């Protein structure tokens, strides 16, 4: 059968299960929207400077992509680290491995279904942000293309990194804690909520090299200033590098069965 049909069908399987689990759907899709509404309402007229000496922009315009970035990392990285280790520990992965389903189809299903959710989330966050707080949207088609590229590349990168990260998670019970150990610090250090200026230089630089910061920066450059891909190459390169690392480590170390 056509591998694309199989991949699409497997994505459908993953999404069906996703919608069935209300709490997972809530945390992935609605929590960032809720934060957007709350913090946007509190700080409706605030302004921030993205870079020192840069122009002042509306806080909600800064904050909306931050929440989208948070949703992307939570919905891909955290959700997959937890989901895959649970499936590994309770034997679901092993069972799938015993069917004709190819690993390629399985992982395409995981990636594509996450990308679909990212698109839904982007529509929710940007739509509500526009409606309630008049957050700025890309003035040009090029800006939209760049934004979509960064968001999807970021989602793919965090998906690959999640698969790689499962190797470090010895059992499903510790998966949420270990996933959050990577997610929460990055969230604070990568200016998802507000621009961080007080960090020691080395720490700011280090945080900037992890994948969340370039994804947020790329999305903001596109959304706020309408920059094209050419203006954000450093962000794209960092994401591509992390994607490559995630893919290579996943291919070499992924386990379909829990450790004996």
């Amino acid at each position: 059968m056509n591998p694309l049909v199989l991949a699409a069908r497997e994505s459908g399987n993953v999404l069906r299960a996703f919608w069935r689990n209300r709490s997972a759907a809530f945390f992935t899709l609605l929590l960032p929207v809720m934060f957007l509404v709350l913090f946007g309402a509190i700080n409706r007229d605030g302004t921030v400077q993205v870079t020192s000496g840069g122009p002042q922009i509306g806080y909600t315009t800064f904050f909306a992509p931050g929440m989208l970035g948070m949703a992307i990392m939570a919905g891909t990285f955290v959700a997959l680290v937890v989901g895959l280790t649970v499936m590994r520990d309770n034997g679901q992965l092993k069972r799938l491995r015993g069917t004709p389903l190819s690993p390629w189809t399985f992982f395409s299903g995981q990636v594509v279904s996450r990308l679909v959710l990212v698109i839904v989330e982007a529509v929710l966050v940007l739509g509500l942000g526009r409606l309630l707080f008049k957050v700025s949207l890309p003035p040009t088609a090029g800006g939209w293309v760049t934004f979509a590229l960064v968001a999807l590349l970021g989602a793919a990168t965090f998906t690959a990194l999640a698969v790689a990260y499962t190797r470090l998670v010895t059992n499903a019970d510790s998966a949420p804690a270990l996933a959050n150990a990577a997610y929460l610090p990055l969230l604070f250090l990568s200016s998802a909520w507000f621009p961080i200026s007080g960090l020691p230089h080395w720490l700011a630089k280090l945080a900037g090299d992890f994948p969340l910061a370039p994804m947020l920066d790329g999305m903001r450059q596109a959304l706020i200033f309408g920059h094209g891909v050419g203006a954000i190459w450093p962000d794209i390169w960092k994401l591509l590098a992390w994607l490559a690392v995630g893919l290579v480590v996943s291919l070499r170390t992924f386990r379909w069965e829990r450790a004996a």
Partner: protein
Amino acid sequence: MLRTRKEASSHPTGREGPAIEARGLIMRYGDREVLRGIDLVVPHGMVVGFLGPNGAGKTTTVEILEGYRRRTAGRATVLGMDPATGGRELRERIGIVLQETGHNPDLTVRETVRQFAGYYQRPRPVDKVIGLVGLQEAADRRVRALSGGQRRRLDVGLALVGDPELVFLDEPTTGFDPAARRQAWQVIGGLRELGKTILLTTHYMDEAQALADRVAIIAAGRIVAEGTPADLAAAQRSTEIRFTLPAGAAPADLPQVSGRVTTQGHNVGISTDDPTLDLLALTGWAAGRGAGHLDGLTVTRPSLEDIYLTLTSDKEVAA
């Protein structure tokens, strides 16, 4: 014993050779040799019970045949393919029921079966599969709401949805209450009627007796016995005679018997292949001493359970 029953391999399917053939399977993890030369043949259309204590190498053997593990040495053929390289083509034709496997709790039974049906080229109709494992009533219930026995039947259903020729069942009833076990046995009995070849791994001798045409017993990485349940019982024919020595008699006074005599204080045990003759000698001897009877006389034939325990415990010590 097993290889004498050749008629099985001429099952009218037109397929060459048995469904499973393993010769001299060896598995080593570092210095530890888990399998020490397993020979196993499963003819087409047969249910073969694979028994052994935990740690004997059952699961390792089965997982080599299922394609999950690479053997260290030896030959293995499953449906004419090497399981280590059979890949997709092999997995289209086998069904695997693993021990304790989770499901997605938020999908219904029907959705779960339909999802797995989508993985095969020629799946069985979803509702047929659900009927086959007796889950019609629960078809639209979420997996979360199923009982343990129902989940296990769903496991079997998922293994059958690809319409496999060969089904691996790994301890399908461990942890079941008696009623759930009977139900599971009915499902497995139904598979036999469909002409499926089944390799059934189990701890329970009675399960093997109820379901299997043939039995192979593994202990400490070797096959220690193989044959029909009746063959196995026949191979260990010896009957145990026990009694207490009459007052004033010493072990040396006992008459000549054909069996092996062991004494422990006043307790005598005789393990014999000819209990009738030995009992005649013993009772005659007792009557001759004026005792008239033997205190605590019992005559027992070992059950298959005993045979299994004897075979496997010997090997455990030897290992």
